[in-house]
């Protein structure tokens, strides 16, 4: 059973648009939700994260919206740039060590 689900599997946007990546989870005990960015040939790198006590987290062009009741969250990338083209993983944890990753969303930003 996939504990963390992501959609869409692939997303294409034009430069300057806002990309919206969705995530949902099963386990109510999850309280830490990091988003990782991965470029081909590299390991994932932490982009932004949120704790379940918050419903929004912003860092520059990146914003997480979190809905605890619905067990859903989303990553919004404003003013998307071609350099944002990568795979984005939503992840979840209840102890910050055993992190469960989703299957990822492949984002393509066209110039």
């Amino acid at each position: 059973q996939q504990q963390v689900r992501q959609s869409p599997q692939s997303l294409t946007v034009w430069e300057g648009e806002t990309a919206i990546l969705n995530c949902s989870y099963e386990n109510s005990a999850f309280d830490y939700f990091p988003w990782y960015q991965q470029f081909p040939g590299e390991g994932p790198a932490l982009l932004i994260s949120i704790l379940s006590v918050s419903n929004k987290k912003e860092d520059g062009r990146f914003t997480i919206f979190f809905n605890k009741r619905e067990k859903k969250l989303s990553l919004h990338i404003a003013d998307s740039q071609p350099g944002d083209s990568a795979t984005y993983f939503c992840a979840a944890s209840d102890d910050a060590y055993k992190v469960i990753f989703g299957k990822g969303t492949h984002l393509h930003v066209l110039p």
Partner: protein
Amino acid sequence: EAGVTQSPRYAVLQEGQAVSFWCDPISGHDTLYWYQQPRDQGPQLLVYFRDEAVIDNSQLPSDRFSAVRPKGTNSTLKIQSAKQGDTATYLCASSFLGSSYEQYFGPGTRLTVL
């Protein structure tokens, strides 16, 4: 500050062969993780250590996989008798207890089992 380093970067072997992966975490990081990332999937935790102790290896296929971190610094992940289903990228990550929850990943070792 040097990041997490891994070697080799690539490995190709026949079914039944053994292979070892090596990881050097960020200096001072007490927690080290090994993940398996199949193609077009997210990383899946295999095992993690705090210093030299195994904290959780419940997802490690123990009959063929083993991992050690004898001095609480570098770590080795070994696969005995590899299978085609082991084809994946093996990622090492490290973190520091008491700081942020962030895990820092190395570039991975891409394993192909023919």
